[in-house]
């Protein structure tokens, strides 16, 4: 169900503009453009107005117009193209094109916008638009915008861009932007007729070591048979760089999968590892956490200054919701079954069924949308060109933070002390005045709450649906058993090992077989070490 | 002289750096009755565990006749002819007295053999005889779960008898027994010892005296003293660590 994004799309109010579209900047450019326009010869004015009606036509007309507007160098084109990109350009039935505010793009006069409709885009238009805007923005005073323009030209390159870029490079002061421009220049030179420049470009692209450069080189190889050897050398250079990067990325992917497993398993490491309770509803607690995230997000939606913080706010909320559910489950049901782990297992399976259906009835069976905040979107470039996705990076950080939190809670708090006391000797702990029932409830609530926090992370990468939990329960148990029941170190090492092994195997075996191999490997491993990697010795291992 | 039934030499067991047994050596001859005493944590139960295969020694030799016990699992060791009675009487609570004894009865132990097993008249007579001996004939069809502590001790001794082992390891057999029962148990063990070797671990010195056997004193995982009860009671080292307290 679409609840929130429709409001966003309407664009009337709270939707924050991406940074490069800041209004002041646009006005600045507009003013700059107008000044230049006044100084321009009449021929260009004609070409500009001549290109405009195409924007009111079909997609291919629009694309052609956009390309024309891009090469004209006419500053009036910039606001038109920008409006087009933002979906704010309108057209009327008689073929006039209107800027936002109902201004006729050709005349600059206010026009009747009543019957106008928005000009729609398709990918071909978007592609043309990117190249055109890139060319126009190469002179932008904003470095980030120039950088983006260089990247856009890199993708849209054509021979005509060569002089444009050469001029821009000469002007450029920012080293990072300059490097992008140099690369874009190489890309453009690759399709330009100058043979000498082309050879240099091949070498430069090879040194860049990027997958995009590789694509360009291979594309050029077909049309430049005489340069095949040089291109092959460059491609081989890129491939070498890429293979190292790929290994690093695989490692990151493994750690990322591992951190999700860690989060899902940490709560289980407490409830199963410390208390010996097999909670088959554990996955449902993760699900509750994800739904808590959704509810907090919805609650924050009305308050614009709060909305970006909904995800951090969800963490305590998810913890509390799942912990409360856990405490109720422990006090109400599980405590009657201590010492009967198998019955607990079956009973909690029934509880899981009930929780799932309850959420389905309350929230509907459809997926719920949890939006990633801007700081969790996109890719982060690490040194060496290793690309890591932001959301997964944050989940790794979150996983480590939760682990530290758990360790700290067990080591350094009164509750942790009482918990350890009860685990080691319930009777003696009771005689020393520890209310063991309360400690049991708190411990279980703590483990469940951690599962809830895992739900916050999972909501960023997976479906938020009533079935969410079922996908994590078996993996979590495998992590805990593999790592060693009752050992947090074991859970950490177990989760990360399984994640990395899975990701290393995946390209060779496929996603399914990789997982099957891992499961079989764990089963065999447990034959050798029935107590797991980091076996606890002594009393806890006896059960 | 015939070879010893049980031969332990330099046996050590280390748990997490703690030495439960420390170079223990012990020889038990055929038909011998041996009492073992020692303070808590002296390694008595660990020694039993090593002999019966529950715990693997870190170092040392453990032999039963010619068999190297360190290479065998519990079931194989039991089938060689070593029976064990636990400190805390352990049996199968869901089964009756009769069934517990039937399971202990020396017979083929494989699953198919058990499936085909038919209770012959002779086997029934043996079980009934043992039930008489341990005084549980009247409770033959009661589930073991409902027996009193003393009766459970007797049932476990009965199970030991049914196994017909060559070597009996008996851990604190008279805890929870009346004086009369204790005497009866002592007499029973002495009687058995003629034909079999018996190792008894016990705290109750009166009982040990009643056995009239050679006594080994363990302390901190190794042998402290060995000899008659009078000999060890007068050994100053024994007095210091054990009796003196």
């Amino acid at each position, binding site marked *: 169900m679409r609840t929130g994004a429709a409001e966003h799309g309407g664009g009337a109010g709270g939707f924050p503009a991406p940074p490069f579209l800041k209004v002041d900047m646009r006005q600045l450019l507009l003013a700059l453009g107008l000044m230049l326009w006044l100084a321009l010869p009449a021929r260009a004015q004609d070409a500009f107005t001549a290109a405009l009606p195409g924007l009111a036509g079909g997609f291919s007309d629009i694309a052609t117009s956009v390309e024309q507007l891009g090469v004209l160098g006419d500053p009036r084109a910039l606001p038109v193209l920008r409006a087009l990109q933002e979906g704010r350009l309108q057209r009327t039935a008689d073929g006039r094109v209107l800027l936002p505010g109902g201004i006729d793009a050709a005349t600059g006069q206010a026009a009747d916008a009543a019957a106008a409709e928005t000009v729609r885009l398709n990918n071909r238009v978007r592609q043309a638009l990117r190249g055109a805007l890139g060319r126009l923005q190469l002179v932008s005073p904003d470095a980030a915008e120039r950088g983006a323009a260089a990247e856009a030209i890199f993708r849209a390159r054509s021979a005509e861009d060569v002089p444009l870029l050469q001029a821009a490079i000469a002007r450029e002061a920012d080293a990072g932007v300059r490097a992008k421009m140099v690369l874009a220049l190489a890309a453009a030179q690759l399709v330009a007729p100058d043979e000498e420049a082309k050879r240099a470009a091949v070498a430069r692209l090879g040194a860049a070591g990027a997958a995009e450069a590789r694509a360009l080189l291979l594309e050029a190889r077909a049309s430049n048979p005489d340069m095949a050897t040089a291109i092959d050398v460059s491609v081989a250079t890129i491939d070498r760089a890429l293979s190292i990067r790929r290994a690093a990325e695989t490692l990151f992917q493994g750690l990322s999968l591992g951190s999700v497993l860690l989060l899902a398993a940490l709560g289980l490491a407490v409830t199963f590892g410390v208390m010996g309770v097999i909670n088959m509803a554990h996955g449902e607690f993760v699900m509750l956490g994800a739904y808590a995230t959704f509810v907090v997000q919805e609650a924050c939606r009305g308050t614009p200054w709060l909305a970006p913080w909904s995800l951090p706010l969800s963490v305590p909320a998810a913890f509390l919701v799942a912990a409360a559910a856990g405490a109720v489950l422990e006090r109400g049901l599980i405590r*009657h079954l201590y010492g009967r782990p198998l019955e*607990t297992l079956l009973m909690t399976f029934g509880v899981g069924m*009930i929780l799932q259906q309850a959420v389905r009835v309350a929230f509907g069976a459809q997926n719920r949308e949890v939006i990633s905040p801007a700081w969790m979107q996109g890719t982060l470039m690490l040194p060496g060109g290793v690309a890591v996705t932001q959301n997964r990076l944050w989940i790794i950080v979150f996983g480590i933070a939760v682990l530290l939190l758990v360790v700290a809670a067990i080591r350094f708090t009164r509750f942790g002390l009482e918990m350890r006391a009860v685990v080691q000797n319930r009777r003696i702990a009771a005689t020393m005045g520890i209310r063991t029932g309360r400690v049991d409830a708190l411990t279980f609530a703590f483990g469940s709450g951690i599962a809830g926090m895992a739900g916050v992370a999972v909501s960023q990468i997976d479906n938020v649906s009533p079935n969410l939990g079922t996908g994590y329960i078996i993996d979590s148990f495998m992590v805990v*058993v593999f790592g060693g029941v009752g050992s947090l170190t074991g859970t950490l090492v177990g989760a990360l090992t399984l994640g990395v092994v899975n990701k290393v195997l995946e390209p060779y075996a496929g996603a399914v077989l990789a997982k099957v191999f891992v499961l079989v490997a764990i089963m065999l491993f*447990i034959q050798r070490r029935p107590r797991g990697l980091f076996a606890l010795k002594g009393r806890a291992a006896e059960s | 002289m015939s070879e010893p039934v049980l031969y332990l030499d330099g046996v050590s067991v280390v748990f997490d750096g703690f030495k439960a047994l420390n170079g223990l050596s012990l020889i038990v001859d055929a038909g011998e009755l041996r009492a073992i005493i020692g303070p808590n944590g002296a390694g008595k139960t660990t020694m039993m565990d090593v002999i*019966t295969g529950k715990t693997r020694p870190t170092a040392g030799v453990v032999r039963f006749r010619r068999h190297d016990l360190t290479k065998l699992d519990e079931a194989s060791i039991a089938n060689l002819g070593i029976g064990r009675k636990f400190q805390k009487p352990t049996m199968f609570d869901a089964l009756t007295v009769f*069934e517990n004894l039937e399971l202990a009865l020396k017979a083929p132990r494989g699953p198919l053999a058990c*499936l085909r097993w038919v209770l012959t008249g002779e086997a029934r007579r043996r079980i009934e005889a043992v039930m008489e001996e341990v005084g549980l004939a009247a409770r033959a069809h009661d589930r073991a779960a409902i027996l009193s502590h003393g009766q459970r001790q007797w049932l476990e001794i009965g199970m030991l008898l049914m196994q017909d082992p060559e070597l009996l390891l008996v851990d604190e057999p008279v805890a929870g027994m009346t004086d009369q029962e204790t005497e009866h148990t002592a007499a029973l063990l002495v009687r058995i010892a003629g034909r079999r070797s018996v190792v008894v671990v016990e705290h109750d010195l009166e009982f040990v005296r009643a056995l009239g056997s050679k006594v080994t004193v363990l302390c901190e995982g190794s042998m402290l003293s060995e000899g008659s009860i009078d000999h060890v009671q007068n050994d100053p080292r024994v007095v210091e660590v054990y009796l003196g307290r």
Partner: protein
Amino acid sequence: MTLRLVLIGAVLVLAALPALNRLPAENALHVSDFIVSIAGKWITYAVLALAIDLAWGYAGILSLGHGAFFALGGYAIGMHLMRLIGPRGVYGHPVLPDFMVFLGYKELPWYWLGFDHFPFAILMAMLVPGVLAGVVGYLAFRSRITGVYLSIITQALTYALMLAFFRNDMGFGGNNGFTDFKELLGMPLNTAAARGALFYASLLLLLGALWICSRVTRSKLGRVLVAIRDAESRARFLGYDVTQHKLFVFVLSAMIAGLAGALYVPQVGIINPGEFSPGNSIEAVIWVAVGGRGTLVGALLGAFSVNALKTWLTTVAPDLWLFALGGLFVAVTLFLPRGLIGLFSRAQR
């Protein structure tokens, strides 16, 4: 004794179902076609429950992967049924099943050979689960993996099999599995006669499984299993090789489950990897818990009552039945540790 009488009565009623179905519809004793068609399925579930009870109720082996053995048996007979379709498939290939034609197989994979013979397929329906149980059981029991650890391992086993069977490249039809069966032993399926025959075959299997299980549980082996269940290490010190005994009963149980699966598939007309899903295995264990484990009658009672309840509730309360069923599982484990059968025996005392 009373339980046995109830059991005999129940079997007689079951046996009479197809006959009662022939009565005119207005007769009070008339049983609808629908009941007859699902009763056959329930019987195979009951056999699965018996198999689980033998391992769990008597030997204390709580396998959360018995659904895997059931499904493997089903796949074995499913392969046979697929072979029997022959040139009647959509693409008219004389040997290859449709899905293989479709995925571009040129010839049958080696592991499909022999399944055109019914005795071979039935043998495989027992042997494949048996061998798998043997290997997994040997490894697990030898390493003394017990209790919840064993449950988790067996659950992972069925999960891994589910993932593997979902792959189309395995040659078992992927997610769609096998459907569109035509005949078995010369009888066209999807006729009342075939359903009757399969129903009685299932009933025979149930009786056979009951006989084997009670033969085991009433022998000394049964008492050894109980001994192992309650005090495994004590049984070892008595000289019982626990690994062997557990393995014996686990393999036997897997083979019974495999046979149940083999009769299940022709009756429901489909086998697909969903049968391996861990939830299915847990549900089957819960039938046993609901009925009362450690008594064979309890397993049967549980399988029939839970499935009847599920059939009824999924129609009368399609949105709420999970609450009812989940609540039942919770209530039974909390208040009726000995299951429904515990109610009866309590009443007897």
